C-alpha cells in the first residue's frame, strides 16, 4: 500500500507494487481542458502489455478463424460430419471449396494455408501471454484487488442496480476511471477463467494428435464435430464480449480509457481541491 493516499483514493483502486500510486500533478499545458485533473496510476505494465498482445492475437485468431470456417461453413454435432450428412446448422455464406453445397454459384479463394499457420501461431502467443498474466496476477494480487467483486456488490440488489444503470446508459462516475464496476469485474473474470480456457480446450479437442494422447478432451465434449461447433460458439461469445467492451470504452471516454491502457495513467478530477 502506498504511504500517501491521494484525496480521491478509492478502496478498490489498484495498488500494484509496480506502479506507485502517487498523484502527480500534470503540467498545465497538457491539462488545459481539465485544469483540476491529476494523473494517477491505473493499469500496471503487465496488464497493459498483456492486454495489447492479447488484442493482437485475438484479431489474428478471428481473421484466420473466419478464413478457416469459410472452407466448410457447415456445423454438426457428434463425432463426424461432411457434405453427405445432415447439419446442425449452416452459415448462409459462400464457401472457399467447390464441393461444399453452399447454395452460391461461386467459390471464394482458398486461404486455409496461411490462416491455419497464423491461427496456431497466434494461439501459442496468446497462451503464453495468458499464462504470464494469470501467474503474475495471482502473485501480485491483481485478481484479488482489481477483479474480484466486493462481497457487498454481489447481491441481487447491487447487481440489478448496476445492470439498470448500464441499461440507462449512465455515464460512469469518476471512481470508475480508476476501478472496475461489478459487471466489468464479473465479465472480465468470465472471459479470463471460462471463455478463454474453453476456447483453448475446444480447439485442442479438434487436434487428432492431441486427442490421441488425451482422448477425454474430445470425448467429454461429445465428439470432434461437437468440439468444432462449440469452438465456433465460444468464439462468437468472445466476439460479443469484444463488441461490448469496445462499445463501453467508447461510451466511457475513448481517449481517456485508451490513454490509461497505453500509458498506465488516468486523469481524475480532484475532489475538494
Amino acid at each position, binding site marked *: 500500500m*502506498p*504511504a*500517501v493516499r491521494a484525496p480521491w483514493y478509492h478502496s478498490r483502486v489498484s495498488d500494484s*507494487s509496480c*506502479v*506507485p*500510486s*502517487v498523484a*502527480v*500533478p*500534470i*503540467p*498545465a499545458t*497538457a491539462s488545459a481542458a481539465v485544469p483540476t485533473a491529476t*494523473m494517477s496510476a491505473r493499469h500496471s505494465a503487465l496488464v497493459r502489455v498483456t492486454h495489447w498482445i492479447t488484442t493482437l492475437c485475438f484479431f489474428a485468431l478471428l481473421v484466420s478463424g473466419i478464413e*478457416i*470456417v469459410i*472452407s*466448410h461453413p*457447415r456445423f454438426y454435432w457428434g*463425432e*463426424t*460430419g*461432411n*457434405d*453427405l*450428412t445432415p447439419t446442425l446448422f449452416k452459415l448462409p455464406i459462400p464457401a472457399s*471449396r*467447390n*464441393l*461444399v453445397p453452399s447454395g452460391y454459384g461461386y467459390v471464394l479463394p482458398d486461404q*486455409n*494455408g*496461411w490462416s*491455419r*499457420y*497464423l491461427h*496456431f*501461431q*497466434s*494461439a*501459442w*502467443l496468446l497462451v503464453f501471454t495468458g499464462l504470464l498474466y494469470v501467474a*503474475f496476477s495471482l*502473485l501480485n494480487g491483481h485478481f484479488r484487488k482489481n477483479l474480484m467483486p466486493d462481497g457487498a456488490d454481489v447481491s441481487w440488489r447491487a447487481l440489478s442496480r448496476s445492470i439498470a444503470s448500464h441499461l440507462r446508459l449512465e455515464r460512469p462516475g469518476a471512481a470508475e476511471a480508476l476501478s472496475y464496476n461489478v459487471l466489468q469485474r464479473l465479465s472480465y473474470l468470465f472471459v479470463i477463467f471460462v471463455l478463454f480456457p474453453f476456447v483453448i480446450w475446444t480447439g*485442442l479437442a*479438434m*487436434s*487428432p*494428435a*492431441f*486427442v*490421441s*494422447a488425451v*482422448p477425454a478432451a*474430445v470425448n467429454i465434449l461429445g465428439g*470432434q*464435430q461437437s468440439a*468444432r461447433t462449440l469452438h465456433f460458439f465460444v468464439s462468437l461469445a468472445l466476439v460479443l464480449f469484444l463488441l461490448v467492451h469496445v462499445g463501453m470504452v467508447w461510451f466511457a471516454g475513448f481517449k481517456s480509457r485508451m490513454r490509461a491502457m497505453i500509458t498506465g*495513467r488516468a486523469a481524475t478530477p480532484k475532489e475538494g481541491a
Partner: protein
Amino acid sequence: MSEPPKPEPPTLGPSKLEPSPRDSSPRNLSRRKLITTGLAATAGIGGLGVAARIAQRYGLIPPDHGGFYGFGETLTYASQRLLTRHSLAREFSRSQISQPPFPNEMPPLNDAFKSLQAGGFADWRLSVSGMVAKPASFSLTQLKSYPSRSQITMVQCEEGWSYIGEWIGVPLSQILQTVEVHPQARYVVYFSIDPDWWESIDMADALHPQTFLTYGMNGGELPVGNGGPLRLRVPRQLGYKSVKFITHLTVTDSLKGFGKGLGSSAPEGGYAWYAGI
C-alpha cells in the same frame, strides 16, 4: 519479469512534487534494474539457443520451421511429438462407421493411373528405396500376403469435415522391417502416382502401429474415391497426410533434397508439413 515489491514506499520527495513533465513517469530505471534485465535477456537468448540445439537433436524441428510462422509451427510439432510419441489415435466401434462412405473431391486421375486401373491394378507396384538394406518393389498381392490389420479411425480434413471408416492394410512398420531400414533414418517420404502429391512423416509416425499401407475399407476393397488401390493412412494427422494412390516411398535422414526442402508438397502449397492439428 517478476519484480519484488520495492523495499521503500514511494515518497513524495521534493523532486516528485516539482511539477515537471519528466515526473509524469514516476518509475526510475535504476542501474540494478537495467543489469537485471540485461542478464535476464542474455539468459533468455542463451536458453533459446540451448533449447533449439536440444530440439534439433531430438528431432523436434519441422522442415517448414523457417519463415514467419516457424515459431508456432515448431512449438506445435515439438510439443505434440513429445506428448504423442506412442499414443494411439482414437478408434471407434463398427456402428460409428460413416454411412454412406464419404469420397472426397479429387483432381482428375492421370493416364498412368487410368491404364493401371484398366488392368485391375494387377501391375500396381510400391517401390521402396533410400536408406534401406534391401530396396524392394511390392505388388498389391505381395502387400496383401502380410498379416492384415484393420482399424476404425477418423479422417479429418483441414477444411472441417470428417468421417469414420474401417481401414484394412499392412502396417508401414512391417514393410520398413522387411526392407531393413538403416538406424540413421529419420523420415519416410511417400509419393502418389499424381506427381503433385507427395508427403513425408517422421519415424515416430512411420513406425506407429496405426500407420497403414491401406488397401481395404469397410470390409471391401479400397475404393478409388478413397485412395484405392493403395493409400497411406496416418490417422494422428489431418487427411492431407494420408496420401492416395501411393506408388513409391523412400527412407531418408534429411528432407533437404526433396522438392523445395520443406518436407512435402503441402508446405509448398502454403500448408503446414506437420498436421497433427
